[in-house]
């Protein structure tokens, strides 16, 4: 539960000096490409900030987003975020259960009215009264609307919460919608990805904590600091694209030599995320580096864009069948037109 101590005081009690904030702000400032002066201000503001109450709601999701944010090996820089926030409700991480945890959620909401942040992973089913996903006897929709009522901001974590994601994939059996479709009177920040890059989640929370405001967002509600550039523009395989060197199959020589994966369906050119620069697991790698094209998981409806292995310049839909039908119809029409013209000519000659 949030208390009145500043983060600086809290860390000092645990024997951690305010240097931690300087370091944290340097790291985050570098990730978010903030001017150095802003990073310094961030360090000062973080030390003075109160612990941020966070209520984490999980709807139609797979818990992969939670896995992503909690994947750290030791008590290091990246984990400081857990000292900065008070995670007052989280299905997977909470120790309490049943009535007790629902009471904790209500207590956190009452105590931090207008100040708490709601993090949501998963989409909300709307079909048939929302019966396809419920907690504590309430539909996800009811829980969401009740919880965000007094929130400062809502952070949608993962593509399901941001844009409906996999539950919303065609034919969308549960009538899944995104959080942004439902919450209209609060700032909704989208951190998409399947899962999102952990630094994008923690960085956004730390930004809100430091500056008390929502970072600059793009037209899809994503922080520009993390989603401002597409994968293709920052991809280390880009020179192969320019040279026209493409892997034609996953096991050919081009693939072994690390050539561009455009032909194998890479969606890097139309996917905005920080994978190519920040990478995953503390900078170890990212999908393209591991030899597979980008799926475009941080974009809306990435599941329904005509196939992961269809190159971006290829058409989607039953083009080949349509063209075959058109060819047949065109041939019939052409021969018929010629026959009509011949018939007319011969009847003219006779007449």
């Amino acid at each position, binding site marked *: 539960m949030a208390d009145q101590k500043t983060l600086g005081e809290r860390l000092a009690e645990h024997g951690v000096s305010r240097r931690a904030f300087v370091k944290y702000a340097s790291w985050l400032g570098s990730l978010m490409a903030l001017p150095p002066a802003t990073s310094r201000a961030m360090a000062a503001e973080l030390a003075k900030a109160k612990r941020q109450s966070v209520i984490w709601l999980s709807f139609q999701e797979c818990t992969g987003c939670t896995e992503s944010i909690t994947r750290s090996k030791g008590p290091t820089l990246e984990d400081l975020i857990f000292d900065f926030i008070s995670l007052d409700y989280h299905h997977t991480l909470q120790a309490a259960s049943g009535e007790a945890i629902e009471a904790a959620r209500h207590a956190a909401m009452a105590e931090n009215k207008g100040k708490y942040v709601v993090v949501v992973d998963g989409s909300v089913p709307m079909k048939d009264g929302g019966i396809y996903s419920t907690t504590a006897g309430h539909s996800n929709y009811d829980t969401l609307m009740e919880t965000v009522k007094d929130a400062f901001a809502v952070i949608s974590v993962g593509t399901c919460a941001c844009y409906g994601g996999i539950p919303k994939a065609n034919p969308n059996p549960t009538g899944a919608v995104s959080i942004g479709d439902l919450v209209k009177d609060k700032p909704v920040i989208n951190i998409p990805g399947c899962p999102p890059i952990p630094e994008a989640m923690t960085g956004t929370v730390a930004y809100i904590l430091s500056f008390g405001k929502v970072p600059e967002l793009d037209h899809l509600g994503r922080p520009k600091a993390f989603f401002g550039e597409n994968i293709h523009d920052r991809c280390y395989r880009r020179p192969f694209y*320019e040279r026209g060197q493409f892997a034609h199959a996953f096991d050919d020589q081009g693939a072994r030599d690390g050539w561009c994966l455009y032909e194998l369906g890479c969606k890097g050119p139309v996917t905005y995320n920080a994978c190519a620069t920040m990478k995953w697991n503390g900078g170890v790698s990212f999908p393209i580096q591991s030899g597979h094209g980008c799926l475009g998981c941080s974009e809306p409806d990435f599941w329904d864009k005509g196939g992961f292995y269809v190159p971006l*310049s*290829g058409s989607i839909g039953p083009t080949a069948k*349509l063209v075959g039908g*058109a060819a047949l119809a*065109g041939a019939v*029409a*052409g021969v018929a037109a010629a026959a009509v013209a*011949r018939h007319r000519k011969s009847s003219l000659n006779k007449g």
Partner: protein
Amino acid sequence: MDLLDFARGPAINVAMVVLVFGTLWRLLAILFLGKPADRTVPRLGMPGPVGAALREIFRRMVPHPTFAFAERFSFFNGWVFHIGLAIVVFGFRPHVLFIKNLTGLSWPTLPSGVVYVVGAITLVSLVAALVRRLTNPVQRFISGVGDYFAWFVTVFPVITGLVAVGHVGARYETLLAIHILSVALLFVWLPFGKLFHAFLVFVSRGTTGAFLARRGV
């Protein structure tokens, strides 16, 4: 569905249907038309119809010596943008992938950088062709709306393609969608306007050649 999904999906599918239907319709209607029985005796010493057709096709690739100087611009510039268009369409990997995705056919392509340069040269050449059409009194006199529209649907994909690879003015997915839509427009118009010469040019020249050879011209 966003703009790119629309372009890659319904738009290009409809355009392909119109292109294939329209092309086969017009082409077969002409090829099966037949020609009236020619009861004249062919001139002696002239090549047969096939030889004459081929001779005419190649002969028309360069201007008649009488007009070689006067037509030097149209001759040179015409070759530049035709070859340029062919290189851009069939030498750029993403374009070939469109065909491969549809038919399974694929062939080696050029480095993207080379294609960008060729594309830019093609654009300049197409603009020069328009300037010539507007400034030359004779060409201007014989040009109609169909000529200018044909020019537009040809140059539009070249411009949008260059803008897309150059990443100018908008996000890449938007630029790519506009490029694909511009190609869709070209596909839809191609069978019905003067651009149909892409399919008919050698048919008409060959037919003329065979006909004239029989007459001894």
